[in-house]
């Protein structure tokens, strides 16, 4: 591929080379386009394999012919530097373009143009594309799980409250921001949980088995994040402590959780944990899961925070000590604020991993979004809708995770430029 024995194109015969090259490229594209959209193969007279590779072959030669260094034509130069720097690159570019031409239209057709949006039963899907009716009908379940329809305003209210509080925290003056954050971290979770679970204040009690869907994903990840943060912080401090008993128990705890998969931890919370409690005590499924995920993520959080602690220069510790600060004052006033700021991207990544791990709670029978899709696709009325369900769930998770990873990347960039 690299040593095609072709005349080296030069600037003197610019017109000849470019017209010949463009002709070949046009032929190769035409071949692929006609083949894809009209179903007619005009290189069909060639033997099977040759006809398959014909457009690639013509295209590569064509691109070779238009590769004229410093041709003076801006458009051509741009193509040559970005897509066509040598024969191998030309070949790869063609493969990518042809693959896109061949596979993107059918995918788009399935996804949008041939898809069904109208109706409310499986029989309404007739056009052969995706059956988004399935998602439409089950949308309520995908978001709220088995939560009773009439009570769903409670979930909406608590999430609306959260958004308003978080939004407000960006605008209020720093003086009140502190109180708002404290409220958000310590008081709001209790209010939100009470509102959703009910049982008091005239609210009907909704057992956790009925919670589910996307809202459960958020509930589990939010609570696990809030709870795992302080535990992770103490574990990180413990691992760096001078006291051997504390150091080794922290190391043991962290490595134990980091060495096992989350699914076994959840299994443990489901079948082994009840054995360790006095007979007759029943701990709610959701709480057991939250404890398991919290301890698991705390170990990862500890390692992230430890990274921040290690990155701080020794002078910070010495300076704090020379001011006569004790261990706790030194860490809470001097060390941790700086260390945590350093590892904000790491914390964001841990949270991202946490969100991606939440579907695993199906192990104990709690069904968040992916679990609800699994349930819906086995419904006798909606068999054969697995593709639509997973694509929808995948899209939702992708949007959430992509937004978060983008945000953490921006944060990383911002922090790294600030520190320089």
């Amino acid at each position, binding site marked *: 591929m690299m040593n095609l024995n072709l005349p080296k194109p030069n600037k003197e015969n610019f017109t000849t080379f470019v017209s010949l090259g463009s002709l070949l490229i046009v032929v190769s594209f035409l071949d692929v386009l006609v083949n894809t959209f009209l179903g007619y193969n005009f290189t069909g007279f060639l033997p099977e394999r040759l006809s398959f590779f014909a457009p690639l072959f013509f295209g590569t030669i064509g691109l070779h012919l238009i590769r004229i260094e410093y041709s003076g034509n801006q458009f051509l130069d741009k193509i040559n530097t970005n897509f066509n720097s040598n024969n191998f690159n030309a070949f*790869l570019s063609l493969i990518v373009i042809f693959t896109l031409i061949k596979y993107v239209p059918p995918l788009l057709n399935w996804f949008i143009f041939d898809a069904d949006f109208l109706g409310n039963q499986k029989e309404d899907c007739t056009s052969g594309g995706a059956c988004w009716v399935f998602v439409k009908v089950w949308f309520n379940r995908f978001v709220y799980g088995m939560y009773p329809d009439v009570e769903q305003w409670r979930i909406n209210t608590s999430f609306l409250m959260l958004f308003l509080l978080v939004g407000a925290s960006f605008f209020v003056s720093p003086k009140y921001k502190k109180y708002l954050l404290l409220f958000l971290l310590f008081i709001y979770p209790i209010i939100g949980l009470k509102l959703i679970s009910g049982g008091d204040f005239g609210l009907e009690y909704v057992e956790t088995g009925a919670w589910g869907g996307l809202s459960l994903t958020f509930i589990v990840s939010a609570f696990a994040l809030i709870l795992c943060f302080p535990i992770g912080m103490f574990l990180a401090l413990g691992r760096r402590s001078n006291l051997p008993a504390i150091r080794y128990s922290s190391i043991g705890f962290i490595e134990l959780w980091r060495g096992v998969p989350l699914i076994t931890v959840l299994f443990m919370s489901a*079948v082994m944990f009840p054995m360790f409690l006095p007979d007759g005590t029943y701990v709610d499924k959701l709480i057991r899961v939250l404890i398991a995920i919290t301890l698991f993520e705390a170990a990862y959080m500890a390692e992230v925070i430890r990274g921040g602690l290690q990155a701080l220069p020794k002078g910070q510790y010495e300076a704090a000590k020379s001011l006569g600060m004790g261990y706790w004052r030194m860490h809470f006033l001097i060390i941790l604020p700086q260390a945590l700021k350093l590892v904000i991207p790491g914390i964001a990544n841990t949270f991202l991993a946490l969100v*991606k791990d939440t579907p695993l709670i199906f192990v104990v029978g709690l069904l968040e979004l*992916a679990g609800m899709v699994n349930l819906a696709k086995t419904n006798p009325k909606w068999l054969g809708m697995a593709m639509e369900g*997973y694509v929808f769930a995948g899209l939702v998770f*992708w949007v959430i*995770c992509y937004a978060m990873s983008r945000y953490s990347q921006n944060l990383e960039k911002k922090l790294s430029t600030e520190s320089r």
Partner: protein
Amino acid sequence: MNFKNFKFDLSNKNKDLIPQVLTILFIVLVIIYFTINAQNNMGNRGISFGFGFLSQESSFDITFSLIDYDGSHSYARAFLVGLLNTILVSAIGIFFATILGVTIGIARLSQNYLIAKTAEWYVEIFRNIPLILQIFFWYFAALRALPLTVDSINFYDISFLNVKGWYVPKFIWTNFSLFLYSVIFSFILIFFVSKYAKKQRDEFGKQIPTLYISLAILFVLPLLTFLLGGVSLSFQIPELNQLSKTVYVYKGGVSIIPELISLALALSMYTATFIAENVRAGILGVNKGQKEAAASIGLTKAQILKLVVMPQALRIIIPPTTNQYLNLTKNSSLAAAIAYPDIVLVFAGTALMQTGRAIEIISITMLTYLSLSLSISVFMNWYNKKMAIKEK
């Protein structure tokens, strides 16, 4: 003064001692509390703690096993089957994730805009979708869309893909051990040749084409066992058999179950994104001056990558990639979701349901993963040390 000093010392000592004693006390108390409760609970259910159940007959079947297994074997054997399946899928996953990850990592740095963008979007798409969802997608949606057994997808008449799995030819060896020894022996020989070549290069500046010599050894020695040692290899090609009017099965060959395919696919495609990011970071982490220096002494682009950039980049790449291998191994436990008989499904699932021995079984499972993780990290630490900069 004296008294003050004394007090200071004592308080300092206590400061160190009290938290440690409290921590240990707390841990011990928790363990005692749990143990007492566990004993009570097990006493109520009439079971006692012990690992004797491992030698009992398991009386359940496993759909996919690398070793001889059926219901008459013991629970210990079932555990081994599960463990081997876990190792199998992890090994396959690590192999493909590495190849895919390195390719995509390099592609992300390509000057070719299209290639770089494609690689970037691959990473962004597959990294941000939960792994379990990808496994579900491949297993319940993509592989279920494959044709039925009768009209399988045919690869050159030797291998067939359908909704029941992928059927590939089975190797039938005679005198396999001799062949295996010859391969091992050629690797040992290659090791000494490369050592000799390195010595020649370092001391006399002679370049020996190690790669060609190694390939020749690896090719010729095993070939000799075929020609002289009586080793022979034949293939058993899967054949379509008709059981009844509408029921067809493939007989012979090796069948790779769809659970394994979808798990390996999802694991390697997901982990490849992380490895790709590591590779990219590693290559970008190599000082630009190194590349320029290499180019100025006339090395070609491929040589620069192979001789100058990669050896340095590997030092940055290996530690985080080890972590990804560990993650892949742990993530292979998601197999339980699609009923691939790995250790979690076989042991922590079926065996636990049958025996009810939650504590023993969950601890064995967790310990197994812990030791798998530790052994991979020990191996990788060793490799890392080997690759680290040796200052003369």
